[in-house]
């Protein structure tokens, strides 16, 4: 018997009760996480709804070639990059700014009130957020009331492709900016007060203190969140877009995930949609891993 086997046997004898606790969770991961990963083989196989979960016969790269030569795919690909980029551009730095502003509030009760209010939207269902967006942008809603008082014609915002990005990103900022401050506020409280004193001794004013003490203090937090954000870059708010878009706004609103949802679930082109989904997931994987490597090399912070 190899020594390896013996140690496993000993571990099993001593910890078998612990291992039994892991059985159900492992089944969960196998069935609902790893089986779907394998299920992606239908991207390369002919699939019959109701038939074999992993498809019927190999067709090679047929579906990959199909989406690569599909002009709609490239539209939704571009839309995904633009929406993801805009979201990152606004939703990443704004919580830092808000946290710095909140940090300057010296009255504790006021600060706590401001935090409570700004966290609130985070707890709402995306359906409610979408419903609020529709009400705000409605023809008889508040935004059009302002336009009307300025003598402008009402705008059917959700019907206009050129407005979709603005609406989407604003609602995203509205829902996430407050909650995003939590980790920064926590990091801010851990900065040593002596660093500020030392900076003041050296004649640093408020701005220079922020630049040389505060910002370096929250840098590890910012880098970590940046990596996480980059990894989910392509997974732009699928559910929210699904709720807010319509055929009129497809030119700017349709993204990879909504397109493959329509292709797969609504039109039953499962293999074609799976091929697109696999492509998206692989890009996501590459993005997280490379963001992690880059940040480890350059700033010395990484997730693993």
């Amino acid at each position, binding site marked *: 018997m190899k020594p390896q086997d013996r140690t496993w046997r000993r571990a099993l004898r001593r910890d078998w009760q*612990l291992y039994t*606790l892991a059985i159900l969770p492992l089944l969960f991961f196998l069935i609902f996480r790893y089986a779907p990963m394998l299920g992606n083989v239908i991207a390369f196989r002919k699939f019959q709804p109701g038939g074999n979960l992993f498809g019927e016969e190999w067709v090679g790269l047929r579906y990959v070639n199909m989406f690569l030569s599909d002009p709609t795919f490239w539209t939704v690909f571009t839309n995904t990059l633009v929406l993801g980029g805009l979201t990152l551009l606004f939703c990443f730095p704004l919580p830092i700014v808000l946290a710095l502003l909140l940090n300057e509030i010296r009255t504790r009760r006021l600060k706590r009130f401001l935090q409570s209010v700004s966290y609130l939207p985070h707890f709402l269902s995306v359906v*409610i957020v979408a419903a609020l967006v529709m009400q*705000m942008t409605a023809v008889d809603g508040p935004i059009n*009331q302002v336009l009307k008082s300025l003598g402008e014609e009402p705008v059917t915002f959700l019907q206009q492709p050129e407005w979709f990005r603005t609406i989407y990103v604003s609602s995203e900022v509205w829902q996430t900016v407050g909650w995003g401050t939590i980790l920064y506020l926590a990091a801010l409280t851990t900065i040593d007060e002596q660093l500020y004193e030392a900076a003041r001794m050296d004649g640093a004013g408020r701005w220079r203190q922020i630049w040389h003490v505060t910002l370096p203090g929250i840098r590890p937090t910012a880098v970590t969140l940046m990596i996480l954000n980059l990894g989910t870059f392509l997974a732009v708010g699928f559910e929210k877009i699904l709720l807010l878009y319509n055929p009129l706004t497809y030119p700017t609103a349709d993204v990879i995930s909504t397109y493959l949802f329509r292709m797969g679930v609504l039109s039953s082109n499962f293999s074609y949609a799976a091929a697109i989904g696999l492509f998206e997931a692989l890009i996501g994987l590459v993005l997280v891993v490379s963001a992690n490597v880059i940040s480890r090399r350059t700033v010395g912070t990484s997730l693993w």
Partner: protein
Amino acid sequence: MVTVGTSRGYRVFQAVNAVVLTGVVAVTLYPFFNILARSFSEETYIRAGEVNLIPRGFNLTTYEIVASDPMFWRNYGNTVYYTVVATLVAIVLTTCYAYVLSKKHLKGRTALIWIAVFTMIFSGGLIPNYVLVTSLGLRNSVWAIALPNAISVFNLLVMKAFFESLPNDLEEAAAIDGLNTYGILWRITLPLSKAVVATMVLFYAVSFWNSWFAAFLYMNESELFPVTVYLRNLIAGATGVENAGAVAGELTQAAANIQSVTIVLTVLPILAVYPFVQRYFVSGVMLGAVKG
């Protein structure tokens, strides 16, 4: 030298800061007050775009119509049922696995951790999941909502970090007293972990309460929808005002603000518990960040 806190520049900054933060609060809360005002207003004022923060032509017609729709309450009941079942499944599985992962001496622990963490950076995607749930025959049952999302790896890591921070002595003493692993987890560890378990229950409960997409994908009958899907179908225009008893005037009234009324009725429970549970969420996120 600049005296901090009293310099003119800093006072200007404080004033600007107060204005900006007041603006943030106003923008955050405005939609809620607007919807509330709309929900109580009369149709003509709404259509003319004259309702802002104060109800015009106060009336409760639409509230009565929505409240007398049996489907609305049925869907609300479904939300409660799905949330309870799914949260229960999730908390049991998460606790068990987090406890196993927290045992540093356990052989194979690193592999068990990676099995979970890898799913954070790569996932099967929508289509294979849809095919899987459908072919497992889970459609139109609570399991289509509960099982595919039974463990959130983020929550798992938070819980694992907490279990790791507990002192070992108590568990060792209990083991010497002859308690087995299940006994130790149930009688020693969990009573010490009430706060973190409560936080995790809240995390899961909120996410299941708010979820709509799984139900939208896997439920065929409107009797099975949660209230989020009820609202979704309303805003998507898939359902209109249906009430046999309502007369024509009431229907035009309802058409104008049924969405606002439904939003108010759906948001209400969240707003009611929010002030009391908010700090648990913040502490949960902190716990996760310390680990991350």
